[in-house]
C-alpha cells in the first residue's frame, strides 16, 4: 500500500532509494540496540577472558609469579609429559562413555514422552529438570550417600548377605555414574525437542509398506532426529570433558581428570601459565568434538535446513 501511494505521489527512484536506505538504517540501528548489549557481554565475559588465557599460556610462572616471557614451554610440557596425556585420555574416555550411555538411556525416555506423553508431555519434560532444583554439590553429596561404602545401596546389599560393592564409590565408575546422573537430562531434553516436531505418521507409512519397527527407527526416526541427538551429544560431551567436581568427590584417587588438574593449577599450585595452556587445549578439544559431531550429522536429512538454506 505504502509503496503504491508513493508511486502515485510521483516520487522518483532516488527518493525511493533514500526512503529504503533510511528504513534500513533505522532497522540496523534498532538491531544494534537490541543485539548490542548481548554482543558486548559476550565480548567482555567470554572472548576477553579467553584471549587472556591464550596469552597467559605463552607466559611463564615461577613461585606464584607470572612472567611475560613468551615461550612454548607450557605446550611442550602439556604434550610431552605423560601425566597430562593420561589426564586428557581419562577425560576423553569418560566423556565418550558417559555421552554414549546417556544417549542409550535418553532416547527411550524422550521417545516415550514425545509419543505417549499426550497432554502431560510438557509436565514430563519439565520433570526432567527436577534434579536441577538443587545445586550440583548437593546432588553429588546425595550420590555419596547413596553409593558410598556405608551408603544405602551397600547397606541394602549387606542386608541381603552380599558384601559391599567397592566399585560403587571412589572409583572412575562412580564418577561416570555421577556424570551420567548429572547430564542425562540434557540429552533427553535435546532429543525430546527434536522428536516433538517429528511426524510419527511416517512410521505408520513405513509399517504399511512392510518395514519392521527396528528398521523404521533406523531409517526414519533416527536420521530425521539426528539434530537432537547431535545437540544432546555436544551438551553432554563437552561439560564431561572439562568436568572436575564429580571426579573429585566421587572418583577416588584414580580418576584425576584434565579438568581437576586444570583447577589445581589455578587454585593450589599457582602454575597459571600451564593451567592456561590446559584451558586452551581443552577448548580446542571441545571445538574438535563439535566439528566431529557436525560432520557426522547429515543436516539436510535431519530437517535442519531452513536457517542454513542447505
Amino acid at each position, binding site marked *: 500500500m505504502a509503496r503504491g501511494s508513493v508511486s502515485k505521489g510521483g516520487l522518483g527512484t532516488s527518493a525511493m532509494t533514500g526512503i529504503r536506505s533510511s528504513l534500513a538504517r533505522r532497522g540496523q540501528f534498532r538491531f544494534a540496540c537490541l543485539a548490542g548489549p548481548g554482543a558486548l557481554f559476550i565480548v567482555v565475559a567470554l572472548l576477553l577472558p579467553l584471549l587472556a588465557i591464550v596469552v597467559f599460556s605463552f607466559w611463564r*610462572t*615461577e*613461585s*606464584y*609469579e607470572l612472567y611475560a616471557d613468551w615461550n612454548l614451554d607450557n605446550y611442550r610440557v602439556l604434550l610431552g*609429559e*605423560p*601425566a*597430562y596425556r*593420561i*589426564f586428557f585420555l581419562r577425560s576423553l574416555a569418560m566423556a565418550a562413555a558417559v555421552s554414549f550411555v546417556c544417549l542409550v538411556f535418553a532416547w527411550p525416555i524422550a521417545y516415550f514422552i514425545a509419543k505417549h506423553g499426550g497432554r502431560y508431555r510438557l509436565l514430563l519434560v519439565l520433570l526432567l529438570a527436577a534434579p536441577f532444583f538443587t545445586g550440583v554439590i548437593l546432588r553429588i553429596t546425595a550420590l*555419596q550417600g547413596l553409593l*558410598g*561404602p*556405608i551408603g544405602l545401596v551397600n547397606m541394602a546389599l549387606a542386608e541381603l548377605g552380599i558384601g559391599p560393592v*567397592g566399585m560403587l*564409590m*571412589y572409583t572412575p565408575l562412580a564418577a561416570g555414574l555421577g556424570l551420567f546422573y548429572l547430564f542425562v537430562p540434557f540429552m533427553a531434553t535435546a532429543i525430546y525437542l527434536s522428536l516433538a516436531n517429528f511426524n510419527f505418521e511416517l512410521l505408520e507409512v513405513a509399517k504399511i509398506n512392510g518395514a519392521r519397527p527396528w528398521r523404521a527407527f533406523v531409517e526414519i526416526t533416527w536420521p530425521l532426529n539426528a539434530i537432537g541427538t547431535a545437540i544432546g551429544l555436544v551438551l553432554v560431551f563437552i561439560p564431561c570433558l572439562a568436568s572436575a567436581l564429580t571426579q*573429585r*568427590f566421587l572418583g*577416588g*584417587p*584414580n580418576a*584425576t581428570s584434565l579438568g*581437576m*588438574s586444570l583447577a*589445581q*593449577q*589455578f*587454585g*593450589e*599450585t*599457582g*602454575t597459571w601459565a*600451564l593451567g592456561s595452556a590446559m584451558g586452551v587445549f581443552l577448548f580446542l578439544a571441545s571445538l574438535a568434538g563439535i566439528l566431529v559431531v557436525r560432520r557426522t550429522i547429515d543436516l539436510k536429512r535431519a530437517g535442519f535446513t531452513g536457517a542454513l538454506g542447505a
Partner: protein
Amino acid sequence: MSNKRNESGRKLARALRLSRRALLGSAAAIAGLAVARKAPFIGNAEAATPTLRLLMWQPYAIKETVDAFEGSFKAKFSPTFFDGNSEAFNKMKVGGTKDFDIVQGDGFWPRLYFRQGLTQGVDFAKIPNMAGVFQDFLPPNFPLLADETGATNVAAPNCWGGYGITVNKARIPDSDIGSISLLLNEKYKGHISTNARFEENIALMGILAATNLGTVGAERPDGKPFNPYNLTDAELDETKRLLIAQKKLLLTRYQDYDALDRLMRGGSVWAAPEFSETYRHLIVLRREGKLDFDVGHVLRPKEGGLGWVDTWMISADADSERVELAHHWMNEFLRKDNYVRVVRSTGYGGTVDVRDLMTADEIELYFQNRSAEASQLHMFDQPSSPEKWERIWSDVEAS
C-alpha cells in the same frame, strides 16, 4: 458509523499509547530522580560504616564473634573464604592487597607475605589480649610471627594444631601406630585416606623420604635445618615413589572433614592424616557413647610431623582506619571469653591460655597442655618450587 468508531478507537489507542509512553517516561524520570537523590545518601552511609574485609578460613567466621565485633565497633565484617595457604597467597598476589584488609596464613607464610610486600607490620601493643597467649607462641620462642630479622612483628597468633594421623584403634594395633609408614602399610589397603591437597601430602611423605634416605640430620644445601617444604631432588624422587606406592592403598582422598568423619565413623577408613578435627569430633562422640571404637591421634610421628599456627596479618594496602580496625579485630578475637568460643567452635588447639575457662576433658581435647609440642613440628611453608611439586603431584595422580 463503523468507520467513525474505528477512527475514534484509533485516536483512543494513539492517546493510550501516548499516555503509556508518557507514563513510562515519567516513571523513568521519577526513578532516575529517586536514584539520583538516594545515591549520595547510600554513598555517605557506606562511607560512614567502616568495613573490615578479610581473606580468611571459614571456621573463624563465628557468628557470635562477628556480631560482637560489629556491635562494638559499628563496623561491617566482610569475609572471603579460602582453603589452602597458596590459594590465599595467589589472591593477594593478583591485586588482593587492595581488596582485603586482613589475610590469614600459617607456618612460614606470614614471613613470605611480608617479604613480598603483601602485608605490613602488626603492632602487638595495640592488641592487649596478646597477654593471654602462651609464651610458646610468641617471639622469640616462636620466631615465625616476626620477620627474619626479628625487628617487625608480621602476624598475630590465632589457633594451632598439627597434621597428625588419626587412627581407629579397634582396627590398628598400637605396634603399627606412631610412624608415617602406617600410611604405607599394605595390611590396611583400602582403609587409608589422605586429604586432596598436594602440599601436605608431599611434605608429610617428604619427612619419611628424608628419614629413609638419612638426610634429615645431614647438612642441607641451603645451610638451614631440614624443612620438608624444601626437599632436595633426591628426596623429592623418593617422596614421589612413596606417594605412588601409597596411592594403591587409598580408599579416597577426602575433600572435607564431613566426608572423613563419615568414612571413619562408618569404619571404612582406619587411618588418615588430618588436622585433628575428625579426631576431636570422634573423641566427643566416643565420650557420648555414640561411637563403638577407640580413636587415637599421633600428633608427631617418630620421623617428625607437620604443624601450623594460624595467624592474622594486615594487608599492605590497608589504610590507617582499616589498620586500626584490624588491630581491634585481632584483640577482640584473642579476648579469653571469645577465644573459648573459638576453640570450642572450630575444634582447634588454642594459642591463648583459657584453661581456667575449660573442663579437664576440654583441656586435653584442645591441646591446652601441649603448646610446647608445637615447636617440635615442622611448620607449614611455601613449597620450594611449586612448579616442581606440581609435576610430582601430577605424576602421582596419573600413576
